[in-house]
């Protein structure tokens, strides 16, 4: 059995049809409101029911150009499906994510144009830095509004975390790249392996492009800043997932049979735990410094980890990593909250130290910003290492716009798409205003 087979497999055609017919077609639908990109869910589901799959895909992709990957990676349980009125009525919401996949997969397979060509063409050239969800959504929106965006990405492949950072059982890199290819077909030019600031300077971008969108996401996982962290066997969650997605056999060799400790309480920590378990880890322990109720990972994600046999150690913080030449164990200390919720202050419980023997420590305690690149953006004010943007996603330097994880600190793909799309629209408006002035 393939432990990485999809956790939400494709619906069969008749399954999709009967599920689509179950949709009540709510007016001013809660699912649409819950979607950050406001996909008209009843409309695309109705179109599945009538056999108008091209129209269904158009409805989805008009609102969310990465609707195919969002159908796979969205936490629908807390977004559209969480809002579905049938969740209350029948305790069974419509499988919106899987229906969305049904329609978008159909389109990716059949191909063909679904968007009307823009009325005007090549109004301006816009540089998009980062080919992740935010950058791709921004570029697609700009193309649809008649601009010529060029997307730069330092990685060898486009797609950002869709390609390199999504748990394998949700989406494969091959699918992410298939979707990127579709975005290219819309007229988005993507240049991979080009690091802005190294291979091409910001001055060159400013010279050649009317506006610049920053969608660079986040950087490395933050260090734990504890002794022993430099030992072999301490790795970053995103590196593990990228490794698994580019060379599964090698990743398996690294993890199989090992005792794994994951540090962190977010959805990335869950991904690291489930992917380790599925790679054959002997045991998986998730260490989180606050309590179960404060854990930021979604409930349904926590369930996945539990289902995969992961153990949770709450209210435990790493103190040091030990080992001779490689990781052999991690020293932990129990913590207690003073105050309420996630804002509560943590204080260590003296004398509560304990050790967990392990072979691998996976850091999943949040990513840091891409500080160097952000700091080099001329006239762009930062706050907590994030570009400050107004409601138009415009920074303090009017030629620079930003969106996605680099301004949010890390959210869902669908949030990045929503911001990218909005930035595409506001860049279009800003560029047109500049042209009127000039």
């Amino acid at each position, binding site marked *: 059995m393939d432990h990485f087979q999809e956790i939400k497999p494709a619906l*069969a*055609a*008749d399954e999709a049809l009967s599920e689509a*017919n179950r949709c009540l*077609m709510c*007016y001013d639908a809660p699912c649409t409101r819950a979607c950050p990109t406001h996909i008209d869910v009843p*409309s695309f589901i*109705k*179109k599945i*029911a*009538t*056999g*108008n799959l*091209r*129209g269904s895909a*158009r409805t989805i992709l008009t609102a969310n150009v990465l609707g195919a990957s969002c159908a796979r990676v969205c936490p629908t349980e807390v977004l559209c499906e969480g809002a579905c009125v049938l969740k209350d009525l029948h305790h069974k919401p419509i499988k919106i994510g899987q229906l969305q996949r049904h329609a978008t997969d159909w389109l990716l397979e059949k191909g063909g144009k679904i968007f009307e060509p823009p009325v005007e063409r090549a109004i301006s050239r816009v540089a998009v830095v980062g080919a992740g969800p935010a950058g791709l959504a921004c570029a697609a929106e700009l193309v649809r509004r008649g601009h010529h965006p060029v997307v730069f990405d330092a990685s060898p492949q486009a797609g950002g975390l869709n390609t390199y950072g999504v748990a394998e059982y949700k989406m494969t890199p091959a699918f992410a790249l298939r979707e990127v290819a579709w975005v290219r077909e819309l007229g988005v030019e993507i240049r991979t392996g080009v690091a802005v600031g190294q291979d091409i300077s910001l001055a060159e971008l400013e010279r050649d492009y009317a506006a610049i969108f920053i969608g660079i996401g986040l950087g490395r996982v933050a260090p734990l800043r504890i002794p022993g962290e430099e030992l072999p066997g301490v790795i970053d969650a995103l590196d593990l997932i990228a490794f698994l997605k580019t060379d599964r056999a090698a990743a398996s060799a690294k993890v199989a049979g090992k005792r794994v400790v994951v540090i962190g309480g977010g959805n990335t920590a869950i991904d690291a735990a489930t992917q380790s378990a599925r790679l054959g880890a002997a045991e998986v322990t998730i260490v989180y410094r606050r309590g179960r109720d404060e854990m930021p990972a979604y409930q349904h994600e926590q369930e996945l980890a539990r289902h995969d046999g992961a153990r949770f150690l709450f209210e435990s913080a790493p103190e040091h990593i030990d080992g001779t030449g490689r990781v052999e164990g991690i020293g932990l200390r129990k913590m207690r909250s003073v105050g309420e919720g996630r804002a509560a202050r943590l204080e260590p419980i003296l004398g509560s130290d304990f050790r967990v023997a392990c072979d691998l420590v996976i850091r999943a305690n949040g990513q840091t910003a891409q500080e160097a690149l952000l700091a080099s953006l001329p006239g762009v004010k930062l706050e907590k290492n994030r570009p400050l943007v107004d409601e138009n996603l415009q920074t303090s330097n009017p030629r620079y716009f930003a969106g996605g994880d680099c301004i949010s600190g890390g959210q869902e793909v669908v949030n990045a798409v929503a911001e990218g799309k909005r930035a595409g629209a506001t860049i279009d408006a800003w560029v047109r205003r500049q042209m009127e002035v000039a």
Partner: protein
Amino acid sequence: MADLRVKFAGISSPNPFWLASAPPTNTGDQVMRAFDAGWGGAVWKTIGDPIVNVSSRYSSVDLGGVRMMGLNNIELITDRTPEINFAEIAEVKKRYPKQALIASLMVESKREAWHEMVKRAEGAGADGLELNFGCPHGMNERGMGAAVGQVPDYTCKITEWVKEAARTPVIVKLTPNITDVTWAARAAKKGGADAVSLINTINSITGIDLDTFAPRPNVAGRSSHGGYCGPAVKPIALNMVASVAQDREVGIPISGIGGISSWRDAAEFIVLGASTVQVCTAVMHYGFRIVEDMIDGLSNYLDDKRIGSVADLVGRSVPAVTKWEELDLNYKIIADVNQQKCIGCGLCYVACNDGAHQSIGVKPRDDGRSHVWILEDLCVGCNLCSLVCPVDNCITMKKVDTGRPTVTWKDFSKDPQKHAYLKNPHH
């Protein structure tokens, strides 16, 4: 992109999707919102001398958890005055010059009364007139609606009166509550009608409250038969549209009505001869927004089929509807079960064994479900097993080459000896 524009009896419309004369077209506000949503035309709720309605007006038939498979109503024509309606028609027409706006009319059966109503409707700017000869409840008791439509001579006579005064195209709306709808269609044609629309609603009682014994919709413990519509009536409407389309004595454009909820339904009416379609129940269920998928779906369908316009689709299936006696008695199909897809529910077996022709074998599988197979020598190709099978494309009907020429009942009855093998049911 296919061209969805249509010209119906001289009336231009951006697409073939019209709202039928019914509650959704009761006011100018509704019609304007419908046009904003994309509807190509609207037939105003029937205008006549204002009536008084009852409270409790609609009732429905649900099927398998799906609401409103069928809907009936005992509402009458508009309860708003002609002055208000015509003023709103004028306003809507001014703001929406491109959409087709049709005034549905019903007055007492007097020549002068019709003449006056026609002039007022046209004066307001209506693009055409629809004569409501179909309303099956209330109005017919007063000598209007179906009381006219059920008597071809009356239909012809009143159409003539209208045509004396009308300058815009006249559409006669036909009632299905008649033995043969083509008689009514011919009468309309004879009276000078430019087009017909069908079907109006069907006489119906949707159900009874078994606690109170009151029929629905319950008006103080009693009810009246109402006009039935919605998805449930579509097959009846399709047949009536096809029979009018095939009738050589009619030969005027048809606006198809009856249970149209999607672009597929609309396309079926169009291939059977309708050049516009009218919708009511689906809008009463889901609102004007459903037209978006109708336009999008029909357009994608035409593109996929490489058909350039709606006009090119009209009537495509009309020649395929024939009399039974013209069907090929030597055409043979038998059922085929895809064992990989079979989920072992046994429904095909029980349906065939109890309800049809005893041509399916069954035995328990190792997993406790049913293994079924077709007894090919016995299968008459009735389709029933493939209709009850819950799995898509699991039971399909395969053509069997009999090596025999086409023989119709007409051929057979002329020379039964020559085709004697047809008397053997398992030939």
